[in-house]
């Protein structure tokens, strides 16, 4: 699971939004610089990203589920909320660690790493929201008023 999320956030090594040191911190490299024994933030934040995205999908498609909240502009509004929240979560956690100097002192971490991780988390939440809402199985089966709602229609 940890490797799965690490690969996602590090874009399989292709697009580094943040430094390798930030990757180590997120994998749980401890403050004594000896092992990956601290909280694995990749798993925590990744799991939370999925839960949050699914929650907002459910909110629009199944809880609110109104004919007046089923246009593409409403989809984009929900997507914006998901992206912003996921960015803030992924940015805040390492940023607080940096502010508290709660990390191995051999690691070089900066605010731009926090922003990079926040962007990465936001992008994955956006992709996940697109996937959930584009694949028709769930919305068609369980939503009444939003069963045709995706990012391009209606």
């Amino acid at each position, binding site marked *: 699971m940890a490797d799965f999320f690490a690969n996602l956030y590090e874009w399989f090594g292709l697009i580094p939004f943040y430094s390798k040191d930030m990757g180590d911190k997120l994998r749980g490299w401890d403050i004594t610089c000896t092992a990956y024994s601290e909280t694995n933030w990749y798993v925590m934040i990744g799991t939370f990203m999925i839960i949050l995205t699914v929650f907002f999908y459910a909110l629009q498609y199944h809880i609110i589920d*109104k004919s007046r909240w089923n246009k593409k502009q409403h989809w984009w509004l929900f997507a914006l909320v998901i992206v912003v929240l996921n960015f803030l979560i992924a940015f805040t956690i390492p940023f607080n660690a940096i502010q508290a100097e709660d990390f191995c002192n051999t690691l070089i971490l900066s605010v731009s790493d926090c922003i990079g991780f926040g962007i990465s988390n936001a992008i994955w939440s956006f992709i996940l929201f697109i996937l959930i809402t584009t694949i028709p199985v769930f919305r068609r089966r369980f939503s*009444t008023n939003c069963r045709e709602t995706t990012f391009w*229609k209606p």
Partner: protein
Amino acid sequence: MARLFVFAIGGTGSRVLKSLTMLLASGIKPDPQKEWEIVPIIIDPHKSNEDLKRTERLLGNYQSIANEGGLSNGFFSTKITTLDKLVASENRLSGSFTFNLQQVSNTRFKEYIDFNQLNEPSHALADILFSGSSINKRGEEVNLLDVEMDIGFVGNPNIGSVVLNQFKDSQEFKEVAANFSSDDRIFIISSIFGGTGAAGFPTILKNIRNAMNNNNIDGRGFLQDSKIGAITVLPYFKIEREADSPINNSDFIGKTKAALYYYKDNVTGNNSVNALYYINDDFGGKALVNDPGDNGQKNGAHFVELASALAIIDFLKTPDRDLECAAGKAINPIYKEFGIRNDVAGIKFSDFEDYTENQISLRISQLALFRKFLNEQASASSENQPWSMEKPELGQQFLNDSFYRTNVTEFLSSFGEWLVEMETTGRGFSPFNLNSSLDSLVKGKVVKSGAFSKRVNYGFYDDKLNKHSRGKSYSSASQKMMDLFFKTTEDILTSKFGLKK
């Protein structure tokens, strides 16, 4: 499928037929277990009568909608057909709903009876029988024999009974007889205080009951013992006083009495009819324009015509055992009248007796709610709600199609006109606030809404359309429209307005 042949005679006949068409369009059915095919035949010498033309257009649109959408969708679910459609081959009929009266256009009555060719005794008899005077379409006083008949018989049933007797030899009557089976029924609509209806009813009835003596037709036995219902409409409106018009309010009662006296021996007295409905209203109200026919005769729809149309529904509900005939006579003739609970100027659904209210309030309200959505919201919802986006699509292309633009829009526009006219003609029938918001559409019905109950607005309407279309398959866009809106309007009106199914 059993057939009901409806003979609609004169202007009142056309207008009652229009009300019947509205009732059938709204989904009112006499018997859910038994399907009826309605075959209207309009008998009116006055071909340019606006009431007749409006009814014909309405019937044409009804037919097109039912043909395209099918008969299993709630709205427009009773088949209405022209007489020519019943004839398999050698079709000699025009395909219209009107009976083709011969030799009345631009013809004076005396030309019709070849007055100048009659021998001396017949000439003298005709002189006596048609000795009165009338006023022609130019406002000139003329002898009855010189009346021009292309605007009807303008209150002269003695002329009408002669001219309408051509019915027995007509192609239309032959086709009715040839296609009549033992399950079929006949209904005759006429007014009693004018010329065409008062004369036409007993004439047609007599020709049907005497079918056995008519060698020109097939199916004589079925016809002679057919189950016949009729409504005779007594005076129910006033007309403006016009010195140079052949029609006067003051004549209505006298003509009615004379006709009833004739019916006493020749209609009711000899048990010719199985079920006879009488209706009148002395409320009066605003007088109608006095138009004998030369300006097109366009009278506003009246509540009495709607109540008269209900007589047809009631007749179809009557079981066969109550309409038995023997040797052309009804064994147990039925006579009925119609009443409402409250004697008020503006009738709402709650002013009806329970039976009538339960029979019509939901269905007519459904059609009104359907019309309101199409007028006010269809364009906005047509491209952006699941109910309209899913196949078969009810998008802008459908709304631009002739089925919708011509047939549906025109029909529902006539329905709106009909409701507005009934509000203002005579004793008003005004069960709807047609221009109000959705939740106050039905007068006297408070929509349930609150913290846990949604308001009725177009968002709610779209929600319900989406709910009822979910997972459904439809054979065509037109079928989808009719089925979906019928179920949705029924749901909204029963759950939110408290109307009973």
